């Protein structure tokens, strides 16, 4: 059983450290200081065939992972690069709540118009990633929430960067999609066949 103190460590360190530890032992307890990390660790647990328990104590979270079935062969992230199928996915990368530079007001108008138009397209991206100011689009109060909810029901995964939500202190206002991390985001970008970044 390994215990890892990941307090103060930025995403994706907690996930990387835990994954490494799980290669040596079947039980790992990791201490983190933010909610986004617990969500990322839950996902790691699911990928690694572990059951997970999260205990909140004062300002920290104790996350206990325990393997419940031996993983047969190399772990997900060490597997050889995926087949041609993965290379045909379209990824939407949104790094601001406005489209382009020059006028913030115009940028927001353009972004709203863009997401409206996206909703009318026949073929949608498989995933949309929101980072930096882009995470302001997936929280309560966003002008494009209805468009995003529509995309979600049609199968588009909506990922908001946990570090970004945390930085702007809006994690608890996430209204659509889920919290992700740099590890998952970088993987999605490199496996994409096409990346559209408005």
């Amino acid at each position, binding site marked *: 059983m390994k215990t890892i103190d990941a307090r103060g460590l930025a995403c994706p360190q907690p996930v990387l450290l835990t994954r490494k530890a799980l290669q040596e032992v079947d039980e790992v307890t990791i201490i983190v200081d933010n909610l986004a990390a617990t969500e990322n660790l839950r996902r790691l647990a699911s990928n690694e065939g572990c059951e997970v328990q999260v205990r909140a104590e004062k300002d920290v979270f104790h996350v206990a992972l325990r393997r419940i079935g031996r993983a047969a062969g190399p772990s997900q992230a060490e597997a050889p690069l995926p087949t041609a199928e993965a290379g045909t996915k379209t990824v939407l990368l949104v790094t601001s709540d406005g489209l382009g530079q020059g006028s913030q*007001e*115009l940028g927001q*108008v353009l972004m*709203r*118009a863009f997401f*409206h*138009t996206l909703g009318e397209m026949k073929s949608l991206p498989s995933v949309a990633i929101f980072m930096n100011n882009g995470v302001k689009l997936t929280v309560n109060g966003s002008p494009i929430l209805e468009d995003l909810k529509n995309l979600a029901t049609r199968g588009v995964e909506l990922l908001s960067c946990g570090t970004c939500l945390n930085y702007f202190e809006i994690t608890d206002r996430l209204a659509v999609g889920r919290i992700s991390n740099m590890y998952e985001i970088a993987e999605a970008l490199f496996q994409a066949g096409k990346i559209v970044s408005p």
Partner: protein
Amino acid sequence: MSYSVAIFHSVSATLRAERVLGQAGLSIKLIPTPRQLSSDCGVALRFESAFRQDIEKLLTLAQMEAEIHDLAR
């Protein structure tokens, strides 16, 4: 659901109208001007056709000029 759109002279006029109508509690959506309607302005306000009269009244009261078109469904 049948929709109508209101088209204004400029982006800023459209945004002003959006604010006015929004404050009045009307359900409107900012969208790119539909391709079949040519216009100087690239964005328009879309709403359910049932509210056309309410919207026309409010726009007149606010002294805002708009072209209103029904969208074929």
